[in-house]
């Protein structure tokens, strides 16, 4: 995919850069990357949304800056440079979340700082932003970020609905509902992720079968 020659990029290539992360190469459901924060903070839909937005912000801006300086960065120091840029945007997002909502900041805890070592972000820097033009790198960041956001929300909402009987704190089943607390615990996270992976695998197989029939 890499073409670092500053030539114009067709709209279809731009669209492909965006859609790749969203669906075909979804970081959690297809590449199974970033599972540590995925498990740790998806015990409620609100935390999942906050972490998804924080990661989206870091992905888009770090991809943009890395792509802007890609011609200047020597290969010997590229990883150090990427980490420095990623850490900068993580620090910024840390301040922003603290300014917007202390409750969300407390809920996400150390996982905000750990976005620095989220392999999705460094992976996109190395595999895409360091080799591609700025606009395409931004779209790739958006695609991967929204893909990660969707995955976190899928997990967070299921875990909150089953584990607490609520969604975004609003009660769904009334006072007689007996919550499955297991879903709020780490084991529930693994179980939910496995179920979603199963759904995705089934979907993929179904598509393949349809293609074969056609």
């Amino acid at each position, binding site marked *: 995919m890499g073409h670092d020659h500053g030539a114009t990029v067709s709209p279809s290539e731009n669209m492909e850069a965006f859609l790749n992360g969203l669906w075909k190469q979804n970081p959690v459901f297809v590449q199974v990357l970033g599972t540590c924060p995925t498990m740790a903070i998806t015990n409620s839909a609100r935390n999942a949304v906050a972490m998804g937005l924080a990661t989206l912000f870091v992905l888009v801006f770090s991809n943009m*800056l890395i792509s802007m*300086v890609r011609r*200047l*960065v*020597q290969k*010997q*120091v590229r990883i*150090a*440079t990427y980490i*420095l*840029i990623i*850490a*900068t*945007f993580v*620090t*910024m997002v840390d*301040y*922003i979340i*603290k*300014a*917007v*909502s*202390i409750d969300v900041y*407390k809920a996400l*805890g*150390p996982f905000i700082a750990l976005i620095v070592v989220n392999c999705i972000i460094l992976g996109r820097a190395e595999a895409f932003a360091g080799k591609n033009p700025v606009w395409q790198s931004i779209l790739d960041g958006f695609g991967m970020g929204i893909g990660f956001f969707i995955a976190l929300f899928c997990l967070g909402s299921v875990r909150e609905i089953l584990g607490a009987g609520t969604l975004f704190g609003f009660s769904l089943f009334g006072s007689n509902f007996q919550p499955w*607390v297991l879903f*709020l*615990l780490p084991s529930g996270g693994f179980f939910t992720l496995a179920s979603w992976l199963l759904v995705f695998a089934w979907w993929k197989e179904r598509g393949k079968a349809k293609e074969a029939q056609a």
Partner: protein
Amino acid sequence: MNTTAPRADMPPSSALIKLMGVVSLICGLLIVTTHQQTLAPIRHNQEIILSETVAELLPGAKKQVSYGVDASGNLSIVEGAEFAGPRLFAGYDAYGGLIGVVIEGGERGYADVIRAMFAYSPQKKAIVGFKVTELKETPGLGDKISSDKKFLSNFKDLDASLEHPIVTVKSGTKKNRWEVDAISGATISSRAVGRLLQKSTKEMIPVIQRNLQRIERGN
């Protein structure tokens, strides 16, 4: 002697240092700008949470005064979060009568430092409310110290006269007013709460007693 010659494709170190310097400068500017822009709302949020906690711990408090405590135990009224040292929060009813004083404290728990605020009543010489403000204890076990009703009932009237040290005792064995009944399965966190209260009361209650008339006047 075996010497290694520099590789031909290796750029000079000065170029690498220069590059890292420029990138660091850009990153530094971004961080400092964000810090400056978010500092005021962050402090504002922290003060709101603090004020809500004080109101929760001292029900009926219509007015709050925040005192900073300096190294020699002297008090000064502080506004906002500009005071870096320990603080006391006095709560007053609608007629200006002192309801109690909220004290902050911290102690190492199982996973990390547990931070809490508790209300001290100078009239009763007792702790009359307790709230955990920060904890990273094990979910389902240690984190019960912030929600377990039986455990929290320890702090409705816990002796803080300083005649006896506040201690955590085994679950179900509390006999005296200065004892904290531990949660079964969360002994380390429960003990940390006992130590937190003992340490903070030992430090702050003498300060409150020495300055009680001033705190009652609210100046």
